[in-house]
């Protein structure tokens, strides 16, 4: 009989640390450090693009392309957990990585223009963005509640200074503080939920639960918690823990009743960061939610389904109704994002409903998130073209008046983005909503479908209200009303942003008519 010495145990342990599996995250972090060093020690430039900014964009673009090639050419069809069950690599992880890299690349491109117009420091912005992205990528591959928490907090901590990046603007700082307080509150709630699960899991008999298999399991791993919940769906502590964890997540998604922060924080933060929040933060929440409800929380899904249903309906209705009253565009986009989160929650519910065969609903979530990425980045990129004199935050509807006449190309791309978000054929957003309707109907979620229909109709009001401002002739102003400042100057240095805008506009349009490989995998 062999006795394992300490070194042998360490070796077995170390073999499970497959660092090669997380090479994108590692290289991203190294790139982040590199960007910071270059900014610190590199040549000082006053020209339109700084070295570290361009370096950041290049690193991320290279990573994205390499990751895509790596993923598409080598057929990764396995699901493997590494680091002793801390991380789980598989299909969802790769999709998430692609998503976050793409979003972060676009945010860096927009960020360069913002930093140039605002004359802010460049290095920290890109460093924080890249670190946040690395955290997001790890978050979506987590297989253990400790890793989940640490990755979530990394992301959150990277976001707080990003939201407050414009230290000359009170709005930015105030938004940062609000985001921090709400974010910390929700992560404390999440943590309490994890603690409840750990408490019951580590000593089940003491808390009225029945023990699961052997005791040498990792009490905070998803598998163990999944078994625990499967065997004890009625335990009050466990249910409380699950609800608390989901509340913490609901904050990130912006689901009711944790959506109070959305309007203010989106309003105050710089436009590229608003885009980052709207796209990546929300997507991370949804990837995580999908993993959780189809993984560890599967045992309590009978209890969770009506709960999520109520939350989804309330979110959809609140998001759409509140967005109708907004004058500021970023606030409106934030609240419409809340509504989209509501629609996605319906898809998550559908995935819970199809017990073993949730692939279709999960795929709908992925597709919807990608379409939302394309449309939102398109809209925010156009918004970042606007040049304010002092601060960036207050883009109102009036600033867009008559854009179709002044700059038809910008207006048309913006139109494509808005129409895709609104779900108008023939753009991609319609296909996403169609697939969502289909899946929801198959899961017999009829009331949710009714609220979705109502939500989409209400959303036409504010989306087409914006289109109205862009395209129709402005209302004649009285002589003594001051003229709004014309934002659409300084349109000379926008090469890369223009490319992004046109790319995403074309993609949104094409995906509305031909879904090709995306539809086949559905």
């Amino acid at each position: 009989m062999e006795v394992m010495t300490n070194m042998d145990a360490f070796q077995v342990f170390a073999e499970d640390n497959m660092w090669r599996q997380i090479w994108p995250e590692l290289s991203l972090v190294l790139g982040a450090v590199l960007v910071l060093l270059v900014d610190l020690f590199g040549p000082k430039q006053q020209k339109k693009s700084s070295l570290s900014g361009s370096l950041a964009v290049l690193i991320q673009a290279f990573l994205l392309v390499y990751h895509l090639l790596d993923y598409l050419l080598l057929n990764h069809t396995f699901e493997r957990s590494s680091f002793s069950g801390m991380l789980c690599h598989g299909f969802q992880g790769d999709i998430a990585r692609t998503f976050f890299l793409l979003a972060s690349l676009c945010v860096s491109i927009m960020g360069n223009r913002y930093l140039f117009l605002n004359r802010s420091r460049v290095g920290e912005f890109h460093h924080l963005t890249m670190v946040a992205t690395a955290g997001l990528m790890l978050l979506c591959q987590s297989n253990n509640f400790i890793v989940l928490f640490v990755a979530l907090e990394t992301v959150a901590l990277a976001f707080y200074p990003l939201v407050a990046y414009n230290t000359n603007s009170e709005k930015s700082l105030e938004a940062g503080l609000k985001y921090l307080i709400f974010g910390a509150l929700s992560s404390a709630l999440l943590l309490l939920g994890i603690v409840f699960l750990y408490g019951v899991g580590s000593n089940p008999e003491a808390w009225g639960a029945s023990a699961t298999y052997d005791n040498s399991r990792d009490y905070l791993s998803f598998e163990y918690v999944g078994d625990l919940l499967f065997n004890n769906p009625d335990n009050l502590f466990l249910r409380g823990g699950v609800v608390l964890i989901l509340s913490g997540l609901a904050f990130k998604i912006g689901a009711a009743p944790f959506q109070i922060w959305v309007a203010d924080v989106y309003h105050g933060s710089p436009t590229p960061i608003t885009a980052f929040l709207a796209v990546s933060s929300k997507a991370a929440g949804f990837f995580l939610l999908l993993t959780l409800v189809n993984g560890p929380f599967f045992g309590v899904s009978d209890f969770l389904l009506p709960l999520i249903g109520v939350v989804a309906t309330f979110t959809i209705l609140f998001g759409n109704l509140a967005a109708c009253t907004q004058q500021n565009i970023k606030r409106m986009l934030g609240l419409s994002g809340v509504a989209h989160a509501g629609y996605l929650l319906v898809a998550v519910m559908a995935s819970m409903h199809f017990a073993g065969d949730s692939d279709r609903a999960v795929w709908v979530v992925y597709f919807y998130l990608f379409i939302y990425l394309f449309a939102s980045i398109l809209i925010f990129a156009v918004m970042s073209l606007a040049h304010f004199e002092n601060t960036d935050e207050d883009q109102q509807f009036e600033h867009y008046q008559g854009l179709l006449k002044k700059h038809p190309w910008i207006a048309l791309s913006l139109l494509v983005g808005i129409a895709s978000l609104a779900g108008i054929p023939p753009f991609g957003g319609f296909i996403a909503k169609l697939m969502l309707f289909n899946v929801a109907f198959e899961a017999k979620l009829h009331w949710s479908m009714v609220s979705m229909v109502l939500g989409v109709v209400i959303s036409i009001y504010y989306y087409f209200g914006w289109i109205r401002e862009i395209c129709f002739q402005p209302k004649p102003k009285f002589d003594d009303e001051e003229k709004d400042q014309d934002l659409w100057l300084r349109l000379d240095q926008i090469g890369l942003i223009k490319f992004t805008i046109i790319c995403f506009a074309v993609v949104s349009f094409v995906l509305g008519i031909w879904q090709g490989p995306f539809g086949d995998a559905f």
Partner: protein
Amino acid sequence: MSLQQIILLGSIFIPAFSAIVILLFFLNNERRAKEIAYVAFIFPFAAGIILFLNFDPLNDGYSHEILFERMGLHELGITFHLGLNGVSAPLFAMAGVVGMSAGIAAIHSNADRKSLYLALLSFMQSGLMGIFASVDIFFYYLFHEFALIPTFLMIGIWGGRDRRSIALEITIYLTLGALISLGGLVALNVMVDSAKFDFPSLSNAILSDGLGSSTQNKIFGLLLFGFGILVALFPFHTWAARGYECAPTSVSMLHAGVLKKFGLYGLIQIALPLLPEGGQSWGAYILWLALGNVLFVGAVTIAQNNLKSMIGNGSVMHMGYCFLGLGVCSSLGASGAIMLMCAHGLSVSLMFLLSHYIHLRSGSLEMNEMGGLGGQTPILACFFAAATFATIGLPGFGNFWGEFAIFLSLGAQEGHFVFLVLAALGIIISAIFGLRAMARIFYGTKTDEMIAYQKNKKISDLRSKEILPAAVILLPLLLLGLWPKMVSDGIDTNVSSQLSILNEEGVGDYALPPCCPPQVELKKKAPPLMDSIKPENGGND
């Protein structure tokens, strides 16, 4: 691909393509934009006529079919399938005719930023041709929504008074209808397990599996209300008159003439044949609501003073007749509804066109400020008289045959006699408002306002470039009225075969009115698609 298939594909893509070309290159070059727009509108017109003439009316399936399988969303059964059948061929031709007329009117109008206007109109035309050419139900829906944004933009930029808010209002209302009908279509797709999402596959699947009666009721209800909002069924009709009054002429022509028929076409081609029990249970409600259209909206039309508003309300009223034909759930009624749709599309767009010409010559659209125009513009008066008689439903124009068939179908079933009587009142109503409008505008003495408006202007009769669009619509209308057989053969074959697939009783007798020329082989019902399979009732619910 045969020449006809290429023409079919081209009739959808050439207007869209020319719109993109105008947007890309010629936004500032109005002359070139006009030339491209000519192509964009004449091609679908020619395509419609050619394909309609080449259509074999005894074929109860689809001809000139094009099928692209791999469009994605394979799981939902969506393919890109184009084709024309007996019902869609005349509607397709009508769309081409109205489109060309609206396009030429737009080219010669004096709108500013005309290139953008023509581009948007071409997009709309492309969508219209696609609606009637598609066999796949998803693309049918997509092409309809394709026209939503151009309509919104055109009403908002080039419309009349209150255009900013009316454009938004109409878009919200129509989106509500579109989404409810989308719910119905999604329900149909999910509940019926067929390989492709088009009518033949769906009917095969329902034949073999059957669809429970309460499911049919719910799906039919969703489709009825969704499509009903889109067609201005009472009480969801308020958007129509306001919208048409405010919209520019070409948009009103295309929308009222063609786009509104989308919902009825869907109900007759998809809902009624596939969901016969649903149709039977909703039938009574449809009849009552349609009567609301005819009588209530008819009364509103009589009270209108604004010419465009009168025409808009009048078109809502005539949609009531079509719904009556639908509600009877017989092949005669459905055929009559289709016939009326073809003819009404032509007549109402002609009315809108002429109202535009009248507006140019008299300075306002309020009828109590007009009078005596007939002396100055006899040709315009002739056209207007023709359009009015068509709207009233006098013989000689296609509307008569449609309305007649609908009344026959109402009379053929007992218990519907009261509907017949009340609906016949509708003819009197249209006579009242039509003839009164004619009298007020063209006869009598000139009012002061008109004299003031015409003081320094030279008021001429219709010029040749104005006569062309009007004649392009009037000729088919007359043709339809004098020789309905060219359209009704195809309609009958198709409708009677479709309605009899799932409904064994072969609802409604097809009885010929004795004065029509004898039509060959009409009593032959096309063989059902699968002889050996009988429809089962009580399948999944």
